[in-house]
């Protein structure tokens, strides 16, 4: 978990373009993206489906190679970075997916511990304690020994949040975390996520269609047809 001075942006995107396919089938998805995200900032990205939100998110998350422009995450330039650097970087980012993507063979605390184990400086005893503490923080103290199949949708997503946040990452990426949830549990999940991220000083980039949760953002970005069209201060 690298310590980055608070004045350096967590994410710095300059002139990023991205295309899929090649030759005649080549289709450009992202056009000249520029953005900066400060430490601890909660940012919501909205836009119709197919506008390129998820592609941008996977680029920031070091899950795809950057093709053009400059993309710096946690002060690491991602363009032309070797795979090993990308893997290293991913360990310092928390991911929350639309589907919870928990490991079904593992109990709740083991799922969370899988994330802690990527940081070898934490001892085994500590890592289990950290996992259980984090589950308590998301309100699942009684559920640490349950398998994902025994939990409700909202509970699973809360385990996923615990997994993403347990290592206190400087950046959390969330892709439609409330899409599969009803109104009440969706609201709970984002609030827990926002509260914990604020406590830990993590920045959040949240992609969503869900208008009900826009109020938690410090800032909202709108994306349309591959262009970032607004960089307003938070509405509402």
């Amino acid at each position: 978990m690298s310590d980055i001075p608070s004045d350096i942006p967590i994410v710095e995107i300059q002139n990023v373009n991205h295309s899929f396919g090649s030759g005649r089938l080549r289709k450009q998805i992202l056009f000249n993206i520029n953005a900066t995200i400060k430490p601890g900032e909660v940012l919501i990205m909205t836009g119709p489906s197919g506008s390129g939100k998820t592609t941008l998110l996977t680029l920031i998350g070091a899950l795809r190679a950057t093709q053009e422009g400059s993309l710096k995450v946690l002060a690491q330039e991602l363009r032309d970075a070797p795979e090993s650097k990308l893997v290293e970087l991913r360990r310092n980012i928390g991911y929350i997916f639309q589907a919870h993507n928990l490991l079904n063979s593992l109990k709740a605390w083991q799922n969370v511990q899988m994330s802690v184990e990527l940081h070898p400086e934490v001892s085994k005893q500590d890592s289990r304690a950290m996992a259980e503490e984090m589950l308590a923080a998301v309100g699942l103290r009684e559920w640490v020994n349950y398998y994902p199949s025994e939990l409700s949708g909202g509970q699973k997503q809360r385990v996923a949040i615990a997994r993403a946040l347990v290592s206190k990452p400087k950046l959390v990426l969330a892709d439609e975390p409330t899409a599969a949830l009803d109104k009440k549990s969706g609201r709970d999940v984002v609030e827990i996520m926002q509260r914990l991220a604020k406590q830990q000083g993590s920045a959040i980039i949240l992609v969503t269609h869900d208008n009900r949760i826009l109020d938690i953002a410090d800032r909202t970005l709108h994306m349309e047809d591959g262009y970032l069209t607004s960089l307003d201060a938070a509405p509402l």
Partner: protein
Amino acid sequence: MFAIPLAWLQLKREKIRLLVALAGIGFAVILMFLQLGFQDALFDSAITFHRNIEGDIFLVSPQSTSLISMKSFPERRLYQSLGFSGVKSISPIYIGFGIWKNPFWEGPPTSQTRSILVIGTVPGDDILSLPGIHERQAQLRLSDVVLFDSASRAEFGPIPAKFEALQPGDPPIRTEVESRRIEVGGIFTMGASFGADGNLITSDLNFRRIFASRQKDLIDIGVIRLEPGADLLTTLERFKQNLPGELRIDPKKTPEQAKEDFVVGDVRVLSKAAFVAVEQNYWKESTAIGFIFTLGAAIGFVVGTVIVYQILYTDVADHLAEYATLKAMGYRNRYLLSVVFQEAIILSIMGFIPGYILCIGLYTLTRNATALPIAMTLARSITVLCLTVLMCSISGAIAVRKVQQADPADIF
């Protein structure tokens, strides 16, 4: 570093799949154990007799290929060798297959007959170190008396049980071999082989009475014992120099082998090691048996590989999204590969254990049913365990290619 045994937890989670995998691997283990066990049993049974003859040098006819097809040679050659320095004593052995009549047959009125291996030795020479023979040298001197192999197949009749049950004063067990009336004077233990279902031992005189048509001065095996301290190779060299006739050496033999296995005139001279090796090589190389059993074991190996591959592939496919998530979290490909290989190794060990235990039972069953010397050996257990681990590793190596497809960018 990794406190969570993911491989084991994933296997354990799918209990039915785990059981199917273990059954499949256990089946492959049993198949390999049985095939290799039968093969070893065949080779062992074929040389039980040879190993238990107490001799240092053996003379046979150059035309003899194995115990079941012995040609005779002049006994004069054996007596000639008595004159070579270093030779302490000599003893002839007669080998023949005779028709044995089951004396306790209670089926249809036709008598039940079966071919049995008859071994003729000179009483008092005591050249066979098989259990039960040393004590019964005196019985061998009686005319028309034979010793019966208690480990012969059951079709010859319940001779050992009836013999043990005889009370003093009871009439002895009488039957016919080659239509000559004989009497069972005792029991010894040698064991059936693939070539001979049962064995009899008798004196040289009785042997000639049973096989009356055989020429008198021909024998099948000449056993030579050396003086204590006499050098085997030096003595063999004397045989080479002094026996009459032309020296012929099989060109396929290495010079080392040719020192212990050569033909002079009308006899083939062999050291004990070469004598055993010739018999074993006959079964290994001149019959289809070795090939058949090796092929059987190989099929077990292939079947096991396919089963383990299927299980691992399904397992990886089911967990592909989870693996992609792990990659997104920052786990390296190497970690995921190691999970698949750990699953392979866990499966191989867990499948081996029930296969091993079942096989001990199957060996006992086979031993009782066939009178073949088949048993679990440490060497074979290690061989099969290594084959099982190899089998699962090959499957793992094919299945991990699927893991590479787990793309973390796809799960968003």
